[in-house]
């Protein structure tokens, strides 16, 4: 792999807090190595801003290995940037070339209010989980782990859904700011497993009610969420969610 350096112009969304209107500002960044991660490139800019007496760009990040789900950002119109199945922290500067202009915006959705600059509040996701995204089993109640054999394919499918990192890229990508992919991943993870079956009906009904309450839009099946999901969560999960919701509504009391 050939390494190279590049000079770029960043057009970054700056917003002091949730009450501020926000605007774009442009910053040149020079001598960026193709081996850097995207966030390391922003680190470079921030170090310069601080040294020059400016205000560094606030952004969320933590594990920087693509699993915690904390990093966000919409890069040139794409949540988590141009690479498929990649979080912003795993995006590397090889994806860009010298002279590029990169527009960086926060995840935009009314349900994700901006905290500052590129950092947003995704507490709505926690509240959706609180509304039913669990299996009710107190510590100490469990039987032996092998007492309940689970079809391997089923377990694998549940795992694929459980791989969701709760980053919110699906919401950011959706033209309706819908959280259906996030929701459906959790509903699928739990309802595919026999342990999750007893609470299947209330779970889906309560979680959808909470999603609607939080101010997310509804799903119009454009599947942009699937295309942008850094963990490749499939929209088949949304179909399953729809089916379960309809089933719960028709058979519920």
């Amino acid at each position, binding site marked *: 792999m050939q390494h190279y350096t590049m000079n770029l112009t960043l057009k970054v969304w700056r917003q002091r807090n949730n009450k501020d209107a926000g605007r774009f500002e442009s910053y040149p960044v020079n001598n960026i190595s193709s081996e850097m991660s995207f966030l390391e490139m922003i680190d470079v800019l921030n170090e310069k801003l601080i040294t020059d007496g400016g205000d560094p760009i606030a952004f969320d990040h933590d594990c920087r290995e693509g699993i915690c789900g904390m990093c966000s950002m919409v890069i040139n119109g794409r949540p988590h940037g141009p690479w498929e199945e990649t979080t912003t922290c795993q995006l590397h500067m090889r994806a860009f070339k010298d002279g590029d202009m990169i527009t960086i915006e926060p995840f*935009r959705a009314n349900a994700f209010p901006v905290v500052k600059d590129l950092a947003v509040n995704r507490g709505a996701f926690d509240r959706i989980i609180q509304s039913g995204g669990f299996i009710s089993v107190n510590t100490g109640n469990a039987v032996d782990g092998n007492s309940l054999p689970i079809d391997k394919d089923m377990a694998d499918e549940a795992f694929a859904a459980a791989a969701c990192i709760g980053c919110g890229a699906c919401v950011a990508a959706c033209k309706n700011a819908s959280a259906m992919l996030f929701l459906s991943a959790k509903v699928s993870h739990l309802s595919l497993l026999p342990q999750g079956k007893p609470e299947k009906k209330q779970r889906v009904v309560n979680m959808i009610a909470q999603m609607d309450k939080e101010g997310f839009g509804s799903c119009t099946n454009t599947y942009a969420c699937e295309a942008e999901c850094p963990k490749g969560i499939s929209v088949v999960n949304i179909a399953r969610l729809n089916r379960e919701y309809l089933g719960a509504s028709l058979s519920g009391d």
Partner: protein
Amino acid sequence: MNWSQLFASSIGKKITMALTGLFLIIFLLVHCYVNANVFFSNPEENFNRAAHFMGTNLLIRVTEIGLFLGFILHIVQGYKLELQNRSKRSVKYAVSSGNVTSKWYSRSMALLGTLILLFLIVHLIHFWVPSRFGGLTEVEYDGKTYHNLYGQMQDVFAQSWVVVLYLIGCFSLSWHLLHGIQSAAQTFGWAHKNYMPVIKNVGAAFAIIIPLIFALMPICLHFGLSLDAGSLTLLF
């Protein structure tokens, strides 16, 4: 959970769209079947007889009320959803991801629906209004009087701008269906990973073939083309 809660929820609203959409698709099939008469031999009489059947059969007339209700529900709910969904992101993106992650027609269902609605209004004025409220010439077959809807078509489609307008309507319909059919399947939860491609392909075929047949009608009438090669087995 009761029914009103179901239909008030975000998924419930989508179910309304899907149900009414599928119902309207059945109407399209019947309409298309009637239209297809013009491509075969003796188009005028066969078409007028078919139109007469559609206009006088009691069952069809009752269903027509349902059809209008279906249209209204689909349109009103569609606009309401669009407005609601638009309100969920007050600050828009400066850069859009464009068509990289989703199809333009999937994102433009409201626009396509509006074009179809405009077309529909013109279409109703051209044919449905005169056949219900008078203004059509009459013809006689086997001693019975029929509206000469075929004649009306010949008059209307003689004008080039009307043909263009109808073609726009058909294209809009095609794209609307291209998204709509598989979307309805997804909403009903029929999208198993093994069947999803089948549903998508069948839906896409439908979305192309039906509007194509519709589009051929004004073209054929405008240019006086006819297959004249046999006839559809008439039910009427």
